[in-house]
């Protein structure tokens, strides 16, 4: 945290964007998002009205853009949970500036992700068939042994738990807004959403316990979610998918793309809402370190896949990797090299401290990483299946239809509409948590420490032992 702050100043700084009228930039961003969302709704209506045939999928390429987008959005969601839960358990103090916005991002990303498998069902009015409820067809139960059903449970649990974690953390901050409210509608709205929070010591004690346990639950949960998503592929027998390294490789990729999205959002948020003192250049740098780490893990996974494809001596496995991917002259070879460049080569720029602390470079890289991670999923899905076992079933020229693209674009609309509304009505930084760390990270408090730092160890120990009595 930068600048000389006290508790009241923190409240003022973080509540200001919520209490002020929305800026022109906010309106422009919000309206663009709503337009994209409407395009997405039209695309989905077309798909539901005329069937999945509105997309350019075919018998060979049964999963195309749709499932690529699903995996991409779920992956993005992971960074929020990582920041809020795993970094809480590892006692990383810096997470406090960015956790609330990152958690919100998780929830919106998972909502976007969930759209794809749901609408991909085609007869979406029968979507509830995936739930194990007593029915008149036997009752015929769902296949609990199927990774696709595991996914239903994993994604819905992930969404629910993330929502609970996010909202339980928000309650005290919403109470702060309630107690500051002047306008009637604000008193009513924040009064309802803050659940009658008082700030009682006993309630804070329970709140701390709740946050800690939810963090403890979310940590294995977030790892399980992308593991299970990777099982959708890894438990099949398709060359290119049938790979045991998928779970850790997917989880690393998820964190990688998620942190890139957090960077994109926070670079804009801190600027537009003037929160540079709270979302500092230190945060940006630390997150860039995570990006280079996870990007390199993903790079090792790509190389391991290639090695194993050769080492396995399976001609099918070898063909999937060497012909369908590495061969740049093959129909989709280009997508493999876009992926390699964006995910593995480009992030290496962050070995330089100067680059890690450069906002323009960071913003550009965060977009590049997300493009790369989209192509990773596209490569995994499409290049593994487009050349089927029989050459007569090869389907080389898959390109998405307008409604397929529109659906993807629409989820951007959904995501950013939600994010704009969130940043307008809810505090984007956890107020209570920032106050909690103020006396450790506020500049005016750090300055007071310089006298203590100058003392010798013996002197300090002596004062600590005897000075306070």
């Amino acid at each position, binding site marked *: 945290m930068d600048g000389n702050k006290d508790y009241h100043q923190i409240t003022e700084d973080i509540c200001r964007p919520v209490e002020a009228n929305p800026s022109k930039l906010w309106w422009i961003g919000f309206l663009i998002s709503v337009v994209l969302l409407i395009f997405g709704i039209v695309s989905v209506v077309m798909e539901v009205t005329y069937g999945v045939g509105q997309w350019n999928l075919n018998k060979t390429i049964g999963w195309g853009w749709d499932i690529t987008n699903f995996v991409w959005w779920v992956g993005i969601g992971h960074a929020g949970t990582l920041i809020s839960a795993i970094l809480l358990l590892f006692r990383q103090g810096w997470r406090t500036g960015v956790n609330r916005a990152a958690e919100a991002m998780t929830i919106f990303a998972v909502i976007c992700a969930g759209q794809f498998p749901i609408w991909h069902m085609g007869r979406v009015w029968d979507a509830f068939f995936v739930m194990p409820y007593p029915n008149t067809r036997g009752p015929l139960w769902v296949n609990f042994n199927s990774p696709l059903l595991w996914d239903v449970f994993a994604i819905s649990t992930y969404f*629910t738990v993330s929502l609970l974690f996010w909202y339980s953390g928000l309650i*005290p901050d919403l109470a*702060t807004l309630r*107690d500051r409210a002047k306008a009637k*509608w604000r008193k*009513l709205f924040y*009064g309802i959403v803050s659940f009658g929070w008082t700030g009682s*010591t006993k309630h804070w004690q329970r709140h701390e316990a709740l946050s800690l*346990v939810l963090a403890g639950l979310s940590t294995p949960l977030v790892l399980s979610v992308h593991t299970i998503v990777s099982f959708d592929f890894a438990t099949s027998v398709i060359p290119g998918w049938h790979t045991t390294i998928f779970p850790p490789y997917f989880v690393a990729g998820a964190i990688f793309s998620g942190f890139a999205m957090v960077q994109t959002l926070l670079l804009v948020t801190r600027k537009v809402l003037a929160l540079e003192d709270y979302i500092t250049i230190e945060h940006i740098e630390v997150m860039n370190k995570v990006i280079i780490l996870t990007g390199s893990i993903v790079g090792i996974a790509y190389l391991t896949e290639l090695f194993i494809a050769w080492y396995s001596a399976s001609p099918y496995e070898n063909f999937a990797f060497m012909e369908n991917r590495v061969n740049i002259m093959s129909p989709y070879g280009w997508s493999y090299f876009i992926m390699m460049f964006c995910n593995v080569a480009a992030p290496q720029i962050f070995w330089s401290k100067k680059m890690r602390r450069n906002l323009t470079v960071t913003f550009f890289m965060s977009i590049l990483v997300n493009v790369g991670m989209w192509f990773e999923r596209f490569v995994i899905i499409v290049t593994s299946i487009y050349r089927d076992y029989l050459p007569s079933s090869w389907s080389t020229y898959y390109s998405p239809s307008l409604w397929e693209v529109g659906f993807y674009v629409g989820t951007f609309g959904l995501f950013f509409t939600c994010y704009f509304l969130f940043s307008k009505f809810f505090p984007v930084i956890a107020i209570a948590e920032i106050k909690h760390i103020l006396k450790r990270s506020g500049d005016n408090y750090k300055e007071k420490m310089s006298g203590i730092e100058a003392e010798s160890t013996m002197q300090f120990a002596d004062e600590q032992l005897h000075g306070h009595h």
Partner: protein
Amino acid sequence: MGVKKFIVGNFYDEEVLFPAVKKTRRAGYKIHDVFTPFPIHGLDKALGLRDTSLHTAGFIFGIAGTTTAVGFITWALTVDWQINFGGKPYFALPAWIPIAFELTVLFSAIGMVLTFCYLCQLAPFVKKDHFNPRSTDDTFVMAIECTSKTNEAEAISFLQSVGATDVQVMNKETGWWIGRYDKDTKTFEKKAAVAN
């Protein structure tokens, strides 16, 4: 619950608050509560509150989730409707681990949050009597409950002596009621008083 009388003092610094809590308790006053804008570690101990058992509730809910998942799937796939999936055994426990894990987490999280809301009486449309609206901003608000033996003037000067500012006597409802924050809704007790 009901309306009670309190002596209420405000603090702005943890380093003043902690000794004040200690002295107040030692002097024999009954601290109703301290309202703070953020969690202050150690304040619960200083007030003599016992540890929360919320963790235990979470554990029990979690076990309930595991049991539900394994129990239900076992019944559905081995008793109610056996289906041969690729020659695998009906009782395919390893394949059920993902769902068993997810339901454990789901039950535990939902159960804990509901327990938390129940214990702290938190819900939409719940309204409470707040001692000082700045207790969610920058003020630590200590409320001492007045009993028949409390000498108000003495208690006020005592609180001032330990560092509290703007010490006041207040009558506050300690329970909750259904109400809106944009209107001065009355508590049940006040309504009853009007009816008499």
